[in-house]
C-alpha cells in the first residue's frame, strides 16, 4: 500500500459499543492481512482502552463520546483511543498489574498490562479533568512470516 490510510470513529460511551469499536478496528486492519492471533491482540487492546474510557473516564455517562483514530502505514497500525473524561490521577499506579480503582465492579486491574503486552508500542497520557489518551502501535508480521 502506498502512503497511509486513516479512519476516525466517535461513539457514545455505552458498553454495547465496546464490541462495535473492536470489530470496526479489526475490519479496518484486515486489509493488512493479519493472523487471527494478531487480530485478537488488536481487538483485546482496543476493548481494554475503550472500556477504560467508558468506565473510568466517563463513569458510564452515555452522553459523552469516545474517539478512536487508526492509521495504517506500511506494515503497522497505530491506534489512538481518547476520551475527555476525568483523567487519571496517578498513572504509575494505574499501570500496575492487578491495580484497580473500582474493585467493587469486579475489575481485574489488567487492562493496561494487556495493552502493553499485546501491542508493540504503548503510551498513555492523561490530565485530571482533561481526559485520557492511549496511543498504541502494532506491526502486522503475518506476511513476513509467510516468506520465512
Amino acid at each position: 500500500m502506498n502512503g497511509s490510510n486513516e479512519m476516525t470513529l466517535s461513539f457514545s460511551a455505552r458498553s454495547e459499543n465496546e464490541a462495535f469499536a473492536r470489530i470496526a478496528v479489526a475490519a479496518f486492519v484486515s486489509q493488512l492481512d493479519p493472523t487471527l492471533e494478531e487480530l485478537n491482540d488488536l481487538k483485546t487492546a482496543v476493548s481494554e482502552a475503550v472500556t477504560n474510557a467508558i468506565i473510568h473516564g466517563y463513569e458510564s455517562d452515555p452522553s459523552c463520546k469516545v474517539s478512536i483514530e487508526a492509521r495504517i502505514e506500511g506494515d503497522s497500525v497505530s491506534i489512538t483511543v481518547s476520551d475527555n473524561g476525568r483523567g487519571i490521577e496517578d498513572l504509575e499506579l494505574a499501570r500496575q498489574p492487578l491495580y484497580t480503582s473500582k474493585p467493587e465492579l469486579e475489575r481485574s486491574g489488567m487492562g493496561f498490562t494487556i495493552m502493553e503486552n499485546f501491542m508493540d508500542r504503548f503510551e498513555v497520557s492523561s490530565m485530571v479533568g482533561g481526559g485520557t489518551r492511549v496511543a498504541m502501535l502494532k506491526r502486522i508480521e503475518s506476511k513476513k512470516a509467510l516468506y520465512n
Partner: protein
Amino acid sequence: MSLQAELEHYRNVLIVRLRGELDHHTADVVRFKMEEAILRGSSDHVILSLKELQFMDSSGLGVILGRYKQVKSKGGKMVVCDVNPNVHRLFELSGLFKILTIHENERSAISSLEVVS
C-alpha cells in the same frame, strides 16, 4: 455481538458454558446468573466451559476471579476447561493459572472434581 451462558447442574457440580464474547458489556449477565446459581443451587463446585467463547478481555478475568472467590468461600472448587489460546494467554498474563486448574474438556474436569468431593 452477545454472550450466552448455559447453566447445567450435574450431581454436585454447576457447569457453566459460555458462548460468544465476554467483555464489560456482557460480564454483568454472567456475574448475576452465576452468582445466583452458586448461592441458591446445591452445587459444591463449578466448571467453566469455554469451548465456544470467541472473545474475552480483562472484564472476563474480573468476573471469573469474582466467582472463584465466591465458590472458594463456600468451600468449593472452580475449574476451567476447553480454553482457547487467546483466553489461555490472558490467564497466563494475569496469574489466574496459579489459582485455577485447567482441564482439556468437561469430562476430565468432572472426573477431577469427583476425586475431590
